[in-house]
């Protein structure tokens, strides 16, 4: 509601402006369609890549104009529902897939792009990794054009590991991991950095533990409400393991109020040895460090989330994000064609090179230059299962309960049984 007066103002200005344009339009016979591209990118270098791509498309299609619209992450999530139902809806916008995309698909506010994907014998679909297309499809309909994906894994400070006598490469099971945490503590090193105030960094732990214990089928069963759903044994066990980790007091001091940037800074400054984070950590930690330099690239090691003994998951089960672009109902017809252009091999390569994305278009992965991102890309190429972030996949309502409960479990505020019960209740309530 707060924005309404300014919108009224904008509208009246727009009307006045278009009145002026009527005269001009009379001489300009060519109709121009405007694609309004809503994104969350605030790094000008990264945005430049998209602007160049847009300019190239405009040059080839003089009847299309591409207009960039920026919203900050949280503001975007809050404003989008209203925006989509207004006349100001963007033509295409950013998505994390999952439950939010599902909600949007039910409303008729967004356009199914299956036909565009499958046109000319699947000319577009065939260029993109099938798992990525599947990840943004619901009941066989493609609702967004994928462009990047990622995987969460452990990153560690090699110097601090050496100081404590821990070998990162030998951590294969959760027990190994716990032993490493104990060794680090004994050596006077803070083992793990985590942004507990933001909660979602903790949900990585709960999600991965649950994936390792329940496995792909167990997860699908839980979603279907079988074996006690998310309150089933596997999830209680995952919660118990997380609670046991929390009891070791492995996190930096004040972690309960720490944000994601705090977590990154603690790792980048060398104040904590381990961080469970996104594939681009080796790049992003530089900017997060207090001195602006961070850890040397060769001082950062990486290992996939370890297996849990007796669990059904395998090491090639990945947990991470998958992002794409959603087309809205009233978007100009050229929007799909532009997205096809945006996600072609050359443009995905350009994005991989500068932005550091792991491209979802086949053949573009060779442009990933950072060695640590390349490792993640290689791991993803072998993925047996790619699970989207639970706070996206299960939808915002249940997802945030997962985040809350992950934090409550690790800090001893809720028992594993109570916590999974609350997650299951939220899930049942929402479905």
């Amino acid at each position, binding site marked *: *509601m*707060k924005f*309404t*007066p300014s919108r009224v103002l904008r509208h009246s200005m727009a009307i006045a402006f278009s009145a002026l344009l009527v005269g001009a339009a009379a001489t300009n016979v060519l109709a121009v369609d405007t694609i309004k591209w809503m994104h969350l990118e605030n790094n000008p270098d990264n945005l430049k890549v998209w602007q160049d791509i847009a300019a190239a498309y405009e040059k080839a299609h003089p009847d299309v104009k591409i207009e960039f619209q920026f919203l900050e992450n*949280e503001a975007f*999530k*809050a404003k989008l*529902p*209203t925006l*989509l*139902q207004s006349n100001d809806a963007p033509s295409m916008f950013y998505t994390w897939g999952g439950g*939010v995309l599902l*909600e*949007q698909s*039910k*409303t*008729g*506010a967004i356009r199914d792009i299956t036909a565009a994907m499958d046109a000319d014998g699947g000319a577009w679909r065939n260029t993109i990794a099938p798992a990525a297309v599947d990840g943004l499809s619901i009941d066989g309909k493609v609702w967004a054009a994928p462009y990047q994906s990622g995987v969460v894994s452990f990153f560690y400070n090699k110097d601090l590991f050496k100081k404590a006598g821990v070998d990162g490469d030998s951590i294969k099971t959760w027990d190994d991991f716990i032993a490493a945490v104990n060794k680090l503590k004994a050596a006077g090193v803070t083992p793990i950095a985590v942004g*507990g*105030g933001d*909660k979602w960094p903790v949900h990585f732990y709960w999600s991965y533990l649950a994936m390792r214990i329940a496995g792909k089928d167990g997860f699908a069963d839980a979603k279907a409400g079988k074996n006690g759903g998310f309150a089933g044994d596997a999830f209680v066990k995952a919660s118990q393991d997380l609670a046991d980790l929390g009891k070791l007091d492995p996190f930096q*001091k*004040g*972690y*309960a*109020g*720490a944000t994601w940037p*705090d977590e990154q800074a*603690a790792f980048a400054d060398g*104040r904590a040895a381990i961080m469970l984070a996104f594939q681009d950590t080796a790049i992003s930690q530089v900017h997060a460090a*207090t001195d602006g330099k961070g850890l040397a690239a060769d001082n950062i090691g990486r290992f996939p989330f370890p297996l849990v003994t007796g669990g059904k998951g395998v090491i090639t089960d990945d947990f991470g994000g998958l992002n794409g672009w959603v087309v809205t109902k009233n978007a100009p017809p050229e929007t799909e064609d532009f997205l096809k252009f945006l996600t072609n091999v050359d443009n995905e390569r350009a994005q991989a090179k500068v932005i550091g994305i792991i491209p979802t278009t086949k053949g573009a992965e060779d442009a990933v230059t950072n060695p640590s991102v390349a490792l993640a890309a290689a791991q993803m190429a072998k993925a047996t299962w790619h699970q989207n972030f639970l706070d996206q996949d299960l*939808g*915002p*309502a249940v997802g*945030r309960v997962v985040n809350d409960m992950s*934090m*409550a479990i690790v*800090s001893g*505020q809720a028992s594993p049984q109570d916590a999974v019960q609350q997650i299951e209740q939220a899930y049942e309530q929402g479905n």
Partner: protein
Amino acid sequence: MSQATSVPIAGSRPYRAPATRRSRSATSGLRWPVLVLFLPPALLLFTIFVVLPMGEAAWYSFYNWSGYGLPTQWVGFKNYGFVFANSAFRQALINNGLIIVISVLVQVPLALWLATMVTSKISGAVGFRLIFFLPYVLADVAAGMIWRFVYDGDFGLVAGIAHLFNVDSIYPIADKNLAIYAILGVVVWKYFGFHMMLFIAGLQAIDKQVLEAAEIDGATPRQKFFHVTLPLLGSTVRLSIFFAIVGSLQLFDMVMPLTGGGPFNATQTMVTFLYSFGVMRMQVGFGSAVGVILFIICVTMAFGYKRIFMKND
């Protein structure tokens, strides 16, 4: 988000009341055309931006609705049940109560005391008036971010002080037992200047001759304050408390950057609860129920207070 507009009504309604009374007595001399010309714009704006959103929120609160499409799933009073069953909401209620109590018992007396100090003729009084008022001028969000740094146990002021005394640093906003007190400290710091300004205005309106007369009669400064100044300042004090209560109920902007309602919902207020659990979780129906409850509390408080304490003002 409609609650963001519905909340201030609690504060603005009382001003409307005298306005209508005045216009009614004045209309006898005026002609209808004036009414027809000047009333509709205000009425229209008020309806579009205040009455309609309130009605909409009340309507949404009976649906299970994500904010997408049109609400279709009627759930009756279920959302209200969920709200009251939510431990975070109960915590928010307690916190709002606590903020009101601290505002009234600490902030207002502090402001009154400082106001009497800076209105007396000590050198530098005007300078202090400005300094005390500064926190209030600061944007709420900026204040929240500044205090987040102050309370930071790694690099903040708290860390610096702890370092000075060679003790382990504390993390006030990461500790669920301390966090609400950290917020209360900022609330008092942020808003006492506003109340102080009210009192300064009130003090300046007091006739100096009355105080002089008391002095001649041999009243001590203490007696002068409690038997002359305070009674004459009564209406200002009541107004100040009224603002403190309404402001406390609306507390949001400062809490979000400071703690975001955490850790473990220990610093949730009703409005941050509405935002985190209604808007961010896309449970617009649930959020609307919170908004309606908040609205009822605000209106009851505002009108109740006006009726009981401010009927003669």
